[in-house]
């Protein structure tokens, strides 16, 4: 039996369908990245799996327990961190961890010990006895993650754990999550960042407007975008149209142009074989090239290929039915 099993889960808020017939499984010790824009239904799914809300239809189990009928057992087996969890502003970091430990029904000595261990693990020892309201965003997230690990739960839900963090704090948190995963914890991670899912998850489910639209490993998903990209930056602005003309010869698709950096990008089927000819033809046309590169598709390209929209565009779509996520 998989550690997380979701069968045909739907959730409606009035007329809004936050989740439509979602099914997935996560095996023990695996990390599933749930990737999608704001309002896609990621948080709704996490809330259902952590027994905070009930699904409208379908069933789900976590660590073998039904999320509707066996909530207490589910809660004893999970940790929840991210945007739908929180820490207490007026308590210190240590008190927050101690409080959560006591509410997991660890005894007082164990609770105290765990609080100390987690402060150390999350690099919060020095600020452990200060009120959380003095913490930075990154420190709060680390404490929040620590609180979810107090009882060393076998299943962890991380709901957009790095949203709103600066790159350095994000990298720190990624390192922490990687080390947790090595310890065998089963993780369901939601994120809007394509890079984050790529970095942390074994497999990725792409969710959009309440439905799963794709599942696979990062490289499988990239293959679905179907191609590589060649990108050329010319020296002068008036050479851009000449470059576009050259690039058209190598692809059935129309090149995209970004004027501000004079860059022309086109998707091709066998980039490495074409690269030499691209250089020759640009040279023959007299285009002075300042940068020429070939890249694999990113998950941004994947999202575009799957939905016809970029993740950023759908973010504004999603805000209209923000109730689905918030």
């Amino acid at each position, binding site marked *: 039996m998989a550690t997380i099993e979701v069968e045909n889960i739907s959730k409606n808020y009035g007329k809004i369908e936050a989740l439509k017939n979602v099914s997935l499984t996560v095996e023990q010790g695996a990390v599933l990245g749930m990737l999608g824009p704001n309002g896609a239904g990621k948080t709704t799914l996490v809330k259902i799996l952590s*027994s*905070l809300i009930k699904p409208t239809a379908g069933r789900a189990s976590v660590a073998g327990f039904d999320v509707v009928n066996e*909530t207490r057992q589910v809660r004893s087996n999970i940790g*929840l961190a991210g945007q739908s*969890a929180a820490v207490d502003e007026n*308590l210190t970091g240590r008190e927050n961890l101690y*409080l*959560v430990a006591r509410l997991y*029904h660890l005894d007082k000595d164990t609770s105290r010990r765990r609080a100390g261990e987690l402060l150390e693990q999350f690099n919060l020892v020095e600020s452990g006895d200060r009120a959380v309201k003095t913490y930075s965003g990154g420190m709060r997230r680390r404490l929040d993650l620590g609180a979810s690990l107090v009882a060393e739960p076998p299943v962890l839900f991380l709901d957009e754990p790095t949203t709103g963090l600066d790159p350095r704090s994000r990298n720190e948190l990624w390192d922490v999550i990687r080390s947790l995963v090595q310890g065998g914890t089963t993780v369901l991670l939601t994120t809007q960042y394509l890079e984050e899912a790529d970095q942390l998850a074994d497999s990725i489910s792409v969710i959009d407007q309440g439905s799963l639209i794709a599942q696979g490993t990062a490289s499988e998903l990239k293959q679905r975008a179907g191609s590589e990209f060649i990108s050329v930056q010319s020296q002068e602005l008036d050479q851009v149209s000449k470059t576009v003309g050259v690039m058209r010869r190598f692809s059935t698709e129309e090149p995209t142009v970004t004027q501000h950096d004079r860059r022309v990008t086109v998707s091709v089927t066998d980039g490495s074989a074409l690269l030499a000819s691209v250089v020759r033809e640009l040279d023959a046309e007299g285009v002075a090239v300042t940068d020429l590169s070939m890249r694999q598709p990113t998950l941004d390209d994947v999202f575009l290929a799957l939905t016809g929209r970029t993740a950023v565009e759908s973010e504004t779509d999603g805000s209209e039915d923000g109730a689905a996520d918030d």
Partner: protein
Amino acid sequence: MTELVANLRGEARWLVQDTITMSWRNLVITTRTPELLTFVTIQPIMFVLLFVYVFGGAIQTGGSYTDFLMPGIIIQTVLFGTSQTAVGLADDLSKGIVDRYRSLPMARSAVIAGRVVGDMARNVLVVFVMLAVGLAIGFRFHGGVAGAIAMPFYAIFFSLAFHFVMAYFGARVGTVESANVVTFLVIFPITFLSSAFVPVETMPGWLQPVAENNPMTYGVDTARAMSQGGEVAENLLFSIAWIVGITVVFAPLAVYQYRKAS
């Protein structure tokens, strides 16, 4: 059915311990919030001084107005103190910290119970501060030692019912601002339409039955009889009936509303 029984058993098993944990949390937060402590002690002292020195000369009670006022204003203060239950719960609900609690295997009613116990504990401090101020400006016990000892504890017990009423409203409105408005609208009429500040006989005839049957009046009259002598038993009986009745209705309502809101 078996799931329901299992859930209730789990709830009962951890209720006491989780209530203690949550009360601890609320008390720690109270001590970290100096403005809250100042507010709950300064405001009642201000009320005592204003009523004694501003209104006291105009209100005829057939004896010392300070002696008349103190039991009333102590009951009024513990009742005002219950508004913190609504505000605190609404604050927790609006900040999403409840999602953390809800993801834990704790007894859910402990969130309400811990809030009530923590807030009542703060009321203990407030009552004794007020008594000290009262004694300093001339308040005296005239009802015997037992009554004098019983009165402050009775006052705190009286607030129990209203903590649950306020917990219900706090969970219902869900934001601090609305909680402040609602508690004001509930508490103000209850405290002033009573025997707390003036004898009921001085009110217009049509209003007297309202004031006489106000649970607050029973509470004030009990505290007054305990501290000044007079009929304790009957008032105590009626006020206990009110307290138990309100608690039995509002404690489950508050828990229900909290579950629904979070």
